[in-house]
Structure formats: structure tokens, C-alpha cells
């Protein structure tokens, strides 16, 4: 395909669709984002909080949605669906139908008057029918685009023209248009990304759950709405029957998953265990009385992601009861309460009464999506998910059409975000010649010179639903703000970060001629860029802006003292106002981008990332400490889907070594790094200096060798005791010793999920079971016993767990108090373990003992993280910028990570993350310059004595003494605004723009004013 189209169609506006769209739009491609419902946000927008960080879902999602909603190069097509598609990669023609909104988006200001007047109430499907909405409605309060739409099935007028039509009468901007008709059009795009997400499983057919028959049995998504402040009961949980707050809540796991009988879904939906724990934790916090008793009934507690195990341990410590028992039927108790009969290991039937039962429902593919796939000729597997292979996790059977998110397999948000970027990367690998050909350039209105004007400050106090207003008297704070000197405008908003309030703010800045803005809401770390962008659009410099964090650092942490919290909010606003008064307009600095990427570590992750960038025409320097490529990938035999690893690796190594854009350096490590995004200078161990714009860290990890201690199990002492990787070596070599075995034992969680390494290594359950199946293949009538704590074969991997059991492999559960005991008696191994079901000791005589040992971080990861200034988790893995929504970026701009050094993960997830890192890196490399820090130091030569203290404390060598004037001079391209020089300078000769001593002291003194 010589000149492919420079645009991409993304189908589905959930978090992964939006992330793919943003990555592509930021890398020079025009994106058409097609979304079925009236607003983007998908399932994530229905969540109250997200695990494991407990971030409020809307708070971390809405900045991305608003960014996508306002992105010049993303064409948002809501209420639209794909009809059909033809053409070939590089030039697809897609027919799309846009259903009528009956509201003109240009005119609608989302004032809500129409909804007040509309007489027709219908169950709100966003709240799963728990609450109601009007026929004319917003999907959710912070919807993007924040435009009303009319539900033609409910609207009285549309069904019988002439009747009702109140909304049209009251709409202040005349936005209602009953004659709106569906429109069909064709889009020409270079590539298509399917991000159609999932549909929650509907348990109405599982009659024994009582759903639909017993009022107080709700699904987890319904419970999420009960928890959410934008839900039907404003975040104060009420149970459906009597609207009282439930005290005793039960969660039943695996409803609609791991069930080949009634629910006919044999796979595991991989997120329900975590969201159940999260809901239990958040429920206990939301409850007014605070004494919620939460019980979770489960088979295997599957907390296999990063930070998940610690989250599970903390929940258990805080009193959430975990009962390893699945429940047959939810029984009826007195006045709509529910009785759960369950049997734990002891075999004694117990009954417990609950006020509410939450069904942790699984994920499945929406029937409409299944029919769409058929229309597009996309192959689905038996579970109706897209068939992907281990080595191309985001590709479908049709070339040029990619998939990301829950549509290919049930997965959590970080995984979906990684796959979104990976899909973007795959699209770019083909369409890169026509980068920036169809995109529009962002232009801001001319900036008003506010230098001469006296400060005219606007204060916007946010309620954030009930998050702030629930504790702080936002009205009083807004009134108080008006009394502060320089403040000419103050206003309270329900959600300041929502789309319309943002536009309203820009409008107010223009009308009132504001030249300083203070927003009192949540943390600037996530929302400052969003509001600063608004200032630019309102025509004033974005640095004339300060935030008062009255949520995370006030209302959320002083919930039991509303007066003090309100008083503190006033102080914080006064501090922000006194600080903003001193703010000056700052220039928007840019730094040229060196078009080269440095990739550290040539394992699978490093090679795939390098290849992805090189295929897009970006030169890559790939350094590897060993003398050969492959890293951890060399060590194992096949992926759980059966694809042989070593053949793939050989092909990958050949492509990388022969690629003209990749400069491979063996036995080379990184010695020093200087500079920042766009202009890194790295000194390698071979003495050479590499200038590069971005860096990808892919240094992998190591497998834990239980040489001593209670996890030894004769490892290193008996020749027939191996770790998983050692057994893989024997498979690769087709070791004849593996034939003729009659008994093998696997021990799971060796060194993982223990106090020294309180995390789950995620890959060993699947790997061990796959190896057991391979052994069974070699010796069909041998016995195999798997001693496990929780089998965590998440997602589609559950099928091989089922296959293993079907083939007679016996699984025996142990726990930390009853560790298996391994000893040797005249040359033969004896393993003793207690079977918890029949409470009897079982003695095994394996010829082969395999230890599923942990994956642990490399010891030298600390040094490397220092070079790039990236943080590390307590366990020693590298810490990404945001666990949920920026899983491949570091806090340091321009540096990305992929592979095992982030967290243990199987090959397909490593490849997805590597491609994702490449896509994120391509955002920088695809540009000629990237914005540099605007808040930099500045020297007043009159006060400078040339003592050069600043030059010695500056970590970036950004300030030096000018030879001839003898005074200090700052290089704004390198200065990162840390302020070390300002604090060191005795003569106050150097200051930090907008963060000078005068302003900080103004804030301090404002805080202490009575």
C-alpha cells in the first residue's frame, strides 16, 4: 500500500477506544471515534471507584474524555454504529449510520431545563434501571459530549407528533429538533480498531441466584451505581426493598463465569474478584455508620495484577471476611433479608443472614457486537471474543483491523489501556508514511497582555458531587472568596471538570476580563493541565492559575469535622488567591526532539518495542547487557495457547538484527543519562554517547531460586526438583528423561504471596498447568498433583485449567499454615500435604517435583531507576506514572517501560505492553519539538555575586556562570523548575517564575491570617 490513508476508525468509546484515539491523534493521525450511546466513557464511567488505587473513576477518566472530546483531530461520532466495511489495509471504506440525537449539539448548553419539564420518566439504563431518567436525558453528569439527547422509544412527541413537546418550548437556545433523521455516510480510513468492550452478564436466567425474584439481590454493576455519588441514591447506599442502608452485605463470585452448566461461560472474567474487594472496601467507607460487615464467597481469590495482592491483604486485615465457598441458592429471610447457606472446608453447613447480596457478574460480548463482527468478517472464538494469538495480541484475522480492550478477552482497565496503545502502534506501523497528512493544527486565540492590568481574580469552587460538598459548605467558601482582595468573580460548580463548566469558565474569563484564575477542587496533579488548557482557550496565559486542593487534602480527610474542613477550605482558597496574585504570564518553551529512541534490554519487550518504532521509520539504539538477544524469552518452551516460543524468538531476533533502523549494542549497559525528553544524552558502558528523544526501559526480571528457607523443598539437593523454567529447558531439549514418569507434583506460589514478596507473580499458575498438560501428553497415564493456594488462570486461561482437571490432574489446596512437606527416603521423594476437603494427610511419591517459583525484580534495577529518575514500588518493580491510566509511562516525561520490570506478565501481555510503549514513544518522536518546562529559574544580575552556589546544586547543569559578566545565567531548555538554586542562593538573586520566595511567603502568610 503506497500511500495509505492518514486516518483511523476507532469503534467503541470506552476507556480503551478513547486511549487508542488519543494516542493516534497525538501521533499525527485523524481519528473517527464511533460510539453507540449518546456519550463516550463506556463501562468505566459507570464505576464509582477503581482498584487498586481507589481513585474515583470519573476523576481519572473525565480528563481523558474531555481531552478526546475537545481534540482537534478526533471526530467524535456518538449515537453511531458501523454498518459494513470493505477495502484493504491502508484504504478501508466504512459505512456508518448516525442515529438522530434530536438535539442540536451546537446549540445545547446542557442547562437541563428540558429534562426538568419533560413529563416522561423511564428506567435509566445507565443505572441498570435502578433510577429513572427523563425521555430527554444526559447519559451521566460528566458525560462527554455534554449534550442532551432524546430517547425515541420514550419520547411522547416522537411517538405521536403533536402531543407534549414541552422540551422544545422551554429550551432557551432552541436546540430541540424533532425532525432529526438518521444519517448514513462513508468514512475512508487507513486502519480500524475495534474497542467494543463488553456487556455485563445478565443473571436473570440463573434463577437460583434469586436475581429478579428477591428484591435485595443486585448485580455488581447495579451496586456500583448504588455506591456512586452520580448514582440513583447520591452515593448513600440504599437497598432496593426498603431504601435502608444495608449493614450485612454478601458478594457471590463467579456469577456467569467459570460455569459451563447454566451460564455456559467457561472462561474467567478476571476482574470480578478485585472489584468485589473494592466494592466491599468502598461500601464500608461510604456507610454513615461505618460498621458494614462484608463477606465475599469465592472459589479462587484472583488478585493477580500489580498491587492487587497487597489490596487483598489489606482488605482482609480491615475485617472483610473471605469465605472459600460457593453458594447454591440465595434463600429468603425475614422482611426481604436474604439467607446464604454455605459449606466451608470443614463440611459443616452454615447459614448467615444478609441485608443485601451482590452478584459479581462476569463479562460477555454483546449480541449486537457479535452480529457486527460477522458483518465485518471478524472471527470470534467459542466464547464470542475475538480470536487473538499469543504473538499478535491485538490483531484480528483481518489484516489492518485491530482489537483492544475486553472485546478480545475479559481484562482490567490497565490491560485495556495497554492494548489500546498497542493497537495504535500496530496501526501506525502501516500508516506512518502519511503521518500528519489529515490532521488539523491546534490554534489558540491571541494571548491578552495582562501585565499592566491589576489582578482580576476568578475563583471557581467545585462541589465534585458530594465528594467536597458532602463535607465542606461550598456556598460559604464561594461567598468568602468574593471578599478576598482582587477577586472579582466567584462561583460554585457541581463538577468543575465537566465539559460545560469548562466552556462556561472560558466564557466567564472573557466576559469578566479575568486575568487570574483559582479553582478550588481536587489535586492539581491530575486536573491542572485541563484547567490551564481552558485559560489558553480563553485567551490568557495558562500560568496565571492556581489550585486549592479542598478535596483530597481537605473534605476527604476531615470528614468528621465539617466546620474545620470548611474553615480550612477558606484558608486554602485564600492561600491560592494570594499566590495567584503574584503569578506572571510565562512563555511556552519548546525543546527540539532528537529523532532516535534508546531501548534498554533486548528481551522480548525490548525487541518488540524497538521493532515497532523502527518499522515507523524511527532509528533505535537497542542496548543489551548480555552478549545475545532474547532475555527471559529464551528460557521458556511455549505460550499457554501452545505456540512454540523459541521459533518465534528466533524470527524476532533475526528481524531485529537485520533491521536497518535498529543499532544493536551487545554487552552494553547505561552509565549516565542527562537532559530531558526530546534531548536525552546517554553515556553507554562502551564509552559512546547516544543522543535520543525517548527511552524505553525493558530490563526484564529474574526467577526466584528457593535455595534455602521454608520454600526450598529439596531444590538444588535432589536432581528431580526443578523450577518451571528449568523444566521448560528439558522440554525444549526434548529430554528423554521426561518419558516413563508415573507421578509428578507441582507446588504453586513458591516465594510469591509471602511477607518477603507480598505480590502474585501472575504467570506461574498458567505456566504450571500448561506444563502439566505437556507432561500428560508425554505420559498419558501418569498421575499429576498440583498443590496450590489459589489457581489464578484468569481470562481465557481458565480453559486449560478445565482441560487439566478433565485429564485427571488432581488439584490439592494448601495454605501458609499447612505447607507441603518434602523429604527424601532411599532415593525417592515423598511429599506430604493435607487435603482440606476430606481433612486427611495425602502422601505422594513423585519422580518429578516442579516449583512454580516467583518472578522477582533484578537487583540492579535500583541503579537504572536512579539514572532516569523513575520510582520503584516497595517490591522492587518499576513504578509507572499512574497504575490505571498511564501504565507504560514513567513520571519522568519521555521515558517508558515494558515487560517484566513493570510487573510479571505472560508473553502476550509483554508484547502488548512493548507495542504500547512504542506508541507512547511515537507521540514524542512524531513531533519536531515537545513542550519544555515553562516554570524555570531566572537570575537578577544586579543581585548576583557570581558565587556559583546555584551551579553546584543544579541537578541538570541548567544554570552556569557567564564567563565575561561573572553572573549566573539559566538555560531554560534544561531547567526543570526544581528550585534547588533558589533555596541555596543567599542573596535572593535567582528566583523561580511563579514559585518565587515572594509568592510562597504570600501563601504562607495567607494561611496564618486569622
Amino acid at each position: 500500500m503506497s500511500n495509505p490513508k492518514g486516518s483511523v476508525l476507532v469503534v467503541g468509546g470506552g476507556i480503551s477506544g478513547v486511549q487508542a484515539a488519543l494516542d493516534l491523534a497525538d501521533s499525527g493521525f485523524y481519528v473517527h471515534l464511533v460510539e453507540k450511546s449518546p456519550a463516550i466513557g463506556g463501562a468505566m464511567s459507570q464505576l464509582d471507584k477503581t482498584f487498586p488505587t481507589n481513585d474515583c473513576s470519573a476523576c481519572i477518566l473525565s480528563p481523558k474524555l474531555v481531552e478526546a472530546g475537545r481534540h482537534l483531530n478526533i471526530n467524535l461520532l456518538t449515537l453511531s454504529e458501523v454498518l459494513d466495511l470493505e477495502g484493504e489495509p491502508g484504504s478501508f471504506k466504512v459505512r456508518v449510520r448516525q442515529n438522530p440525537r434530536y438535539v442540536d449539539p451546537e446549540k445545547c448548553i446542557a442547562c437541563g431545563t428540558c429534562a426538568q419539564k419533560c413529563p416522561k420518566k423511564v428506567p435509566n439504563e445507565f443505572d441498570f434501571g435502578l433510577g429513572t431518567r427523563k425521555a430527554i436525558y444526559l447519559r451521566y453528569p460528566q458525560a462527554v459530549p455534554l449534550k442532551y439527547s432524546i430517547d425515541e422509544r420514550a419520547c411522547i412527541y416522537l411517538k405521536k407528533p403533536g402531543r407534549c413537546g414541552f422540551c422544545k418550548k422551554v429550551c432557551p437556545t432552541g436546540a430541540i429538533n424533532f425532525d432529526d433523521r438518521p444519517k448514513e455516510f462513508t468514512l475512508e480510513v487507513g486502519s480500524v480498531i475495534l474497542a467494543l468492550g463488553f456487556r455485563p452478564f445478565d443473571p436473570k436466567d440463573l434463577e437460583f441466584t434469586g436475581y429478579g425474584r428477591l428484591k435485595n439481590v443486585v448485580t455488581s454493576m447495579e451496586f456500583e451505581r448504588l455506591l456512586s455519588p452520580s448514582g440513583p441514591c447520591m452515593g448513600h447506599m440504599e437497598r432496593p426493598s426498603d431504601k435502608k442502608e444495608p449493614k450485612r452485605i454478601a458478594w457471590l463470585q463467579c456469577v456467569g463465569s467459570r460455569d459451563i452448566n447454566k451460564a455456559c461461560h467457561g472462561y474467567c472474567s478476571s476482574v470480578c474478584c478485585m472489584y468485589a474487594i473494592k466494592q466491599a472496601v468502598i461500601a464500608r467507607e461510604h456507610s454513615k455508620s461505618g460498621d458494614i460487615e462484608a463477606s465475599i464467597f469465592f472459589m479462587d481469590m484472583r488478585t493477580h495484577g500489580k498491587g492487587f495482592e497487597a489490596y487483598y491483604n489489606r482488605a482482609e486485615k480491615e475485617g472483610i471476611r473471605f469465605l472459600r465457598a460457593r453458594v447454591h441458592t440465595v434463600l429468603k429471610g425475614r422482611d426481604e433479608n436474604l439467607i446464604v447457606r454455605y459449606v466451608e472446608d470443614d463440611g459443616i453447613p452454615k447459614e448467615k443472614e444478609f441485608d443485601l447480596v451482590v452478584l459479581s457478574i462476569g463479562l460477555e460480548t454483546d449480541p449486537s457486537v457479535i452480529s457486527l463482527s460477522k458483518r465485518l468478517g471478524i472471527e470470534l472464538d467459542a466464547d464470542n471474543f475475538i480470536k487473538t494469538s499469543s504473538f499478535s495480541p491485538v490483531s484480528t484475522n483481518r489484516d489492518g483491523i485491530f482489537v483492544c480492550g475486553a472485546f478480545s478477552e475479559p481484562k482490567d482497565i490497565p490491560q485495556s489501556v495497554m492494548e489500546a496503545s498497542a493497537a495504535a502502534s500496530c496501526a501506525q506501523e502501516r500508516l506512518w508514511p502519511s503521518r500528519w497528512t489529515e490532521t488539523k493544527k491546534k490554534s489558540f486565540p491571541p494571548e491578552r497582555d495582562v501585565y499592566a492590568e491589576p489582578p482580576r481574580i476568578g475563583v471557581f469552587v467545585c462541589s465534585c458531587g458530594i465528594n467536597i460538598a458532602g463535607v465542606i459548605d461550598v456556598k460559604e467558601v464561594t461567598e468568602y472568596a468574593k471578599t478576598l482582595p482582587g477577586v472579582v468573580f466567584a462561583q460554585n460548580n457541581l463538577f468543575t471538570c465537566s465539559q460545560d463548566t469548562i466552556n462556561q469558565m472560558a466564557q466567564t474569563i472573557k466576559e469578566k476580563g479575568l486575568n487570574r484564575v483559582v479553582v478550588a477542587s481536587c489535586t492539581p496533579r491530575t486536573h491542572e493541565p485541563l484547567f490551564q488548557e481552558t485559560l489558553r482557550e480563553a485567551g490568557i496565559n495558562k500560568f496565571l492559575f492556581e489550585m486549592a486542593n479542598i478535596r483530597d487534602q481537605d473534605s476527604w480527610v476531615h470528614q468528621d469535622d465539617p466546620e474545620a474542613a470548611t474553615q480550612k477550605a477558606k484558608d486554602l482558597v485564600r492561600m491560592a488567591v494570594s499566590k495567584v496574585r503574584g503569578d506572571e504570564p510565562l512563555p511556552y518553551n519548546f525543546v527540539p526532539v532528537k529523532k532516535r529512541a534508546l531501548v534498554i534490554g533486548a528481551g522480548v519487550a525490548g525487541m518488540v518495542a524497538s521493532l515497532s518504532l523502527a518499522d515507523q521509520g524511527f532509528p533505535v539504539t537497542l542496548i543489551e547487557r548480555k552478549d545475545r538477544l532474547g532475555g527471559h524469552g529464551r528460557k521458556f518452551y511455549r505460550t499457554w495457547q501452545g505456540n512454540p516460543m523459541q521459533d518465534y524468538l528466533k524470527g524476532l531476533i533475526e528481524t531485529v538484527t537485520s533491521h536497518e533502523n535498529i543499532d544493536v549494542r551487545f554487552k552494553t549497559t547505561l552509565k549516565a543519562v542527562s537532559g530531558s525528553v526530546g534531548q536525552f544524552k546517554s553515556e553507554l558502558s562502551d564509552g559512546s554517547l547516544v543522543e535520543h528523544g525517548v527511552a524505553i526501559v525493558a530490563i526484564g526480571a529474574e526467577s526466584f531460586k528457593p535455595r534455602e528457607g521454608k520454600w526450598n523443598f529439596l531444590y538444588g539437593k535432589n536432581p528431580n526438583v526443578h523450577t518451571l523454567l528449568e523444566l521448560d529447558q528439558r522440554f525444549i531439549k526434548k529430554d528423554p528423561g521426561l518419558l516413563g514418569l508415573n507421578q509428578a507434583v507441582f507446588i504453586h506460589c513458591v516465594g510469591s504471596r509471602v511477607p518477603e514478596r507480598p505480590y502474585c507473580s501472575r504467570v506461574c499458575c498458567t505456566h504450571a498447568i500448561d506444563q502439566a498438560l505437556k507432561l500428560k501428553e508425554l505420559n498419558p497415564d501418569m498421575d499429576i498433583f498440583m498443590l496450590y493456594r489459589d489457581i489464578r488462570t484468569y481470562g481465557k486461561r481458565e480453559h486449560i485449567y478445565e482441560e487439566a482437571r478433565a485429564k485427571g490432574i488432581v488439584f490439592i489446596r494448601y495454605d501458609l499454615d499447612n505447607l507441603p512437606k518434602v523429604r527424601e527416603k532411599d532415593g525417592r521423594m515423598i511429599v506430604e500435604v493435607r487435603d482440606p476437603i476430606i481433612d486427611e494427610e495425602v502422601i505422594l511419591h513423585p519422580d518429578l517435583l516442579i516449583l512454580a517459583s516467583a518472578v522477582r525484580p533484578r537487583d540492579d534495577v535500583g541503579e537504572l531507576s536512579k539514572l532516569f529518575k523513575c520510582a520503584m514500588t516497595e517490591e522492587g518493580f518499576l513504578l509507572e506514572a499512574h497504575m490505571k491510566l498511564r501504565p507504560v509511562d514513567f513520571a519522568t516525561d519521555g521515558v517508558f517501560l515494558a515487560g517484566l520490570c513493570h510487573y510479571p506478565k505472560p508473553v502476550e501481555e509483554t508484547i502488548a505492553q512493548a507495542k504500547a510503549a512504542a506508541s507512547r514513544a511515537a507521540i514524542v518522536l512524531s513531533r519536531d519539538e515537545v513542550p519544555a518546562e515553562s516554570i524555570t529559574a531566572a537570575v537578577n544580575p544586579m543581585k548576583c555575586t557570581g558565587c556559583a552556589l546555584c551551579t553546584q546544586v543544579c541537578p541538570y547543569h541548567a544554570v552556569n556562570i557567564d564567563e565575561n559578566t561573572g553572573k549566573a545565567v539559566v538555560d531554560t531548555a534544561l531547567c526543570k523548575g526544581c528550585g534547588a538554586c533558589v533555596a541555596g542562593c543567599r542573596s535572593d538573586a535567582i528566583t523561580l517564575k511563579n514559585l518565587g520566595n515572594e509568592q510562597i511567603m504570600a501563601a504562607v502568610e495567607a494561611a496564618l491570617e486569622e
Partner: protein
Amino acid sequence: MFYATLEGLRRFKIPHNFEFVSIISLYAKWIREGRLKVDPSWNKEGLKFTCQDPCKLVRQGIGDLVADDLRFVIKRVVGEENFIECWPNRSNNFCCGGGGGALQAGFVENRRKYGKVKFEQLSQTGADVVITPCHNCHTQILDICDYYGGKWKTTHLWNWIEKALVLEK
């Protein structure tokens, strides 16, 4: 025993030129066709009824269809408002403990322990009469009612149909 014959014919592929049906389905069919006229007005003082869904007839036999027929008949015979639904019910109902040869096997103490769940479920409905359209259920529920001191009467369905029969002159 409904299931015994139904499954026997199927499993052993016994040639038969008749259709094997349950009397419950026929009651419903005849009432719907009007062949069998019943009138619930006899139940002036509002005697409360509930029923047992026999495992061999419903769960293992022909499923929820026959359970719905059973309820249709009972409601037409005793008056809709006098019927109280058990939970769980129909194909998911608790077994009373009489079937599967338990009555004959002689482990009385186990059988009665088995029946405790059913006893609690039935007494929770507070019904005055429990209709058991199966001989084993009838014997067992009679026994656990008396053993655990239940307050209800255990009868077959036909007694009440007879009571509600309308004979045209």
C-alpha cells in the same frame, strides 16, 4: 414414580405406542378446556395452601412447565389469593427427602435430618395445607410435619379438586 418410568422408557429404549403424561398436566389441560369445572368459592375462610414440587416430576421430569400447571390448578381450586409460593421452588426446589428410596431404605434418623430444611421452608410459608402431588413426598412431608411439630395438613391435590368440583346437572 414419574421419572422412573419416563427415564426407563428412554434409557432402555422400550418400544411403546403411548404418550407418558403426568396427571398434573392433564388436570390443567382439562380445566383450561373447560372439561373439568372447578370453583374456589368453597374456601370461604381463606385456607392458605402451598405445594411441593416433586423432584422426580419437576426437576428430573418435565421441568417448570408442569410446576406452572400445578400452580394453575391449585389457584383455580383454592383461589389465587390463598396460594403462597415457596422459595426456592419449581426446578430448584428442595427435595423433601422421601424420594430415591429413602423411605424404604430405613435410615429414619438420617431421613428426618434431611427433611429439616424442607420442614423449615414449608413452615416459613405459614400455609395451612401442603399439597404433595407425589406419594413419596406425601409420606415424607406427613412424617416430618408430625416429627418436627408442623401446623399444616399434608394432602394430595385430588382431594381439593374433588372439593371444588362443579357438577353440571
